[in-house]
C-alpha cells in the first residue's frame, strides 16, 4: 500500500521525454519531410446518398452510374431517417437498385466497361450502382476513342 503520489514524485516521473533519446540521423528538411495528418473530414460529404424515404445509405462519389429521371428524388438528398449499411440498404431496395460489378482496372479507367453497357443502363428504370466484390466503388468512365477518320 502507498500514500498518494506527491507533486515532487510526479515531476520526477515527467522530467524528460523519451523522444529525446531516439537517435537522429540527418534530419530532413521540411520540404522533404511533409506529413499529412487527418484534418476535418466528412465521409458523408465524400459520398453520394441513396434513400428510400425512411432509410438511407452512402456510396463513394462516382459509384452511381445511372439515375433514371423517375428515381432522381432518391439520389443525393439530405440524410433523413435511419442510416443503413450498404448491404442492408441494398437488400431492402432491390426493387429499384441494380448493381454493376466492375474490376479495379475498370474503376480506375484503365480498361473500358464492356461495350453496350452504358446503352443498357439508359433503358433501365433502376438506379445503377458500381460494385466491386459487393462493395460500392467509384468508377472513372472513359469514353471510347472514336476511330480516326481519314479523308481520301
Amino acid at each position: 500500500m502507498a500514500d498518494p503520489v506527491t507533486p515532487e514524485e510526479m515531476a520526477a516521473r515527467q522530467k524528460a521525454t523519451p523522444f529525446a533519446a531516439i537517435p537522429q540521423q540527418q534530419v530532413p528538411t521540411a520540404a522533404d519531410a511533409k506529413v499529412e495528418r487527418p484534418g476535418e473530414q466528412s465521409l458523408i460529404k465524400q459520398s453520394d446518398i441513396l434513400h428510400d424515404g425512411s432509410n438511407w445509405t452512402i456510396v463513394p462519389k462516382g459509384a452511381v452510374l445511372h439515375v433514371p429521371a423517375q428515381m432522381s428524388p432518391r439520389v443525393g438528398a439530405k440524410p433523413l431517417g435511419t442510416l443503413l449499411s450498404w448491404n442492408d440498404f441494398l437488400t431492402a431496395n432491390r426493387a429499384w437498385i441494380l448493381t454493376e460489378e466492375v474490376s479495379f482496372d475498370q474503376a480506375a479507367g484503365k480498361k473500358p466497361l464492356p461495350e453496350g453497357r452504358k446503352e443498357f443502363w439508359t433503358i433501365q428504370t433502376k438506379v445503377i450502382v458500381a460494385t466491386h466484390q459487393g462493395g460500392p466503388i467509384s468508377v472513372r468512365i472513359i469514353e471510347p476513342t472514336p476511330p480516326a477518320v481519314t479523308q481520301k
Partner: protein
Amino acid sequence: MKSYLLLGAFLCSHAHAAGEGFANFVRQTQQGTGVVWSMPVTPTGSSASQLLLEEGGSLFQLWTIEQATAKEYLLDQKLVGAYLPKADVVITTVDPTRDPETGALRTRADKPFTVKATVSGLLSGINLPVAATQVLFEQHLASFSGTTTSITPAQATSGTPKNSSYIAANGVTTLDFGATALPAVNGAAAKAKGQEHFVVHALSDGSFSQTQIASGYVQVWPAATGSIEGIANGDRVRLKAPTLTIIRNDVYPSSYTYLQVYEGTPKLGTKGIPLSDKAPLVWTSSVSKSDVVTVSDYDKYLPKDGIYTLELVTETPFDSVRLDYVTFSVDRTLDVRAQITGLDGE
C-alpha cells in the same frame, strides 16, 4: 504485384466503438488513381482488401456513423503500399483491463507505460529519397475537459504533436514513459486526464492525401483522492461514533474503494477490518467516478476501548493507495463520580 491486406487488427482495435446503433464503413482510397472502394464490413471481425495495393499506396479509413443522428467519426486510418515503409505501434500499460465500451487501453496519470514502434521497409544508402529512409514518430496529447471523455483519433492527431522524432532504422524503437505528459488539471499533474496518441507517418512527396502508416493510443485517468470528514485526529468517541462524510474523487475505472479500521496508531500497509457494509465502491466502468457518501452506525467495528485508525483505501490494477486516514480513541467506560456521605444522627 497483387497483394492482399488483412484488415483484422485494424478493425478489431475499434470494433467495440462501432456496435449497436452505429454503421461502420471502411473506405479504401487508391492514392494513384483516386479510386474509392467501400468495403463491406460487419461490426466485428476482419476482412481482406481485394483491391490492388498499387505502387502509389492505399489509404484505409475506418468510419462509424450514428444511425439515428448521422454524426460521423473517423476512428482510424492507415496508409499502406507495396513500396512504403511499414510500421506498427504497440502500447503496454500496467492495467490489464480495457475500456469495456471502446476496448481502449488505459492507464493512470502517475503510472508508467511503454510505447513500441516497429518499423520495416526503410532503405539505407546514398541518393535515396528521404521518404524511403525515414519515418516520423509523433506523440499527440488530447485532454478531456468538462464532461468530455471521448475524443476520436482523427481529432486527437490532426494538430501539432507534443513531441516528434524521426526513425531512420528498421526495428523496434521503445519509449518508456514514467507518467503521462498530459497537462495538469488545476495545477495537479496527477489529475491529468485524456488520451495520448502515438502515430508513425511516412514522409510524403506531396502525392499522398494522408501519410499515417500506424497509430495507437492510451486513455489516461487521474489518480484518485479522497477524504474522511466528520471526525478529526485525536477525537474521543464516548458513546455513539459520529456520522462520517466520505469524499471519493476520480476513482479509477477498474477499482475497489472502501473504509478499513484497525486498532492502534496509523501504520501504512496495515491490513485492517474492512467496513464491508459501509458504502464500499466496486467501480468497473469506462470512466472514472467521484461521489460523496455518508457512513453511520459503524460502532460494531470499534468493539472495545482504545486507539483506532480509520483509512480510506482504493485498490486498482496498479496498487493500493491510502487516500486518507484518521486516528481517534474510543472510551466508553463510565466514570461515576459520586460521594457517599452519612448523616450523623443527632
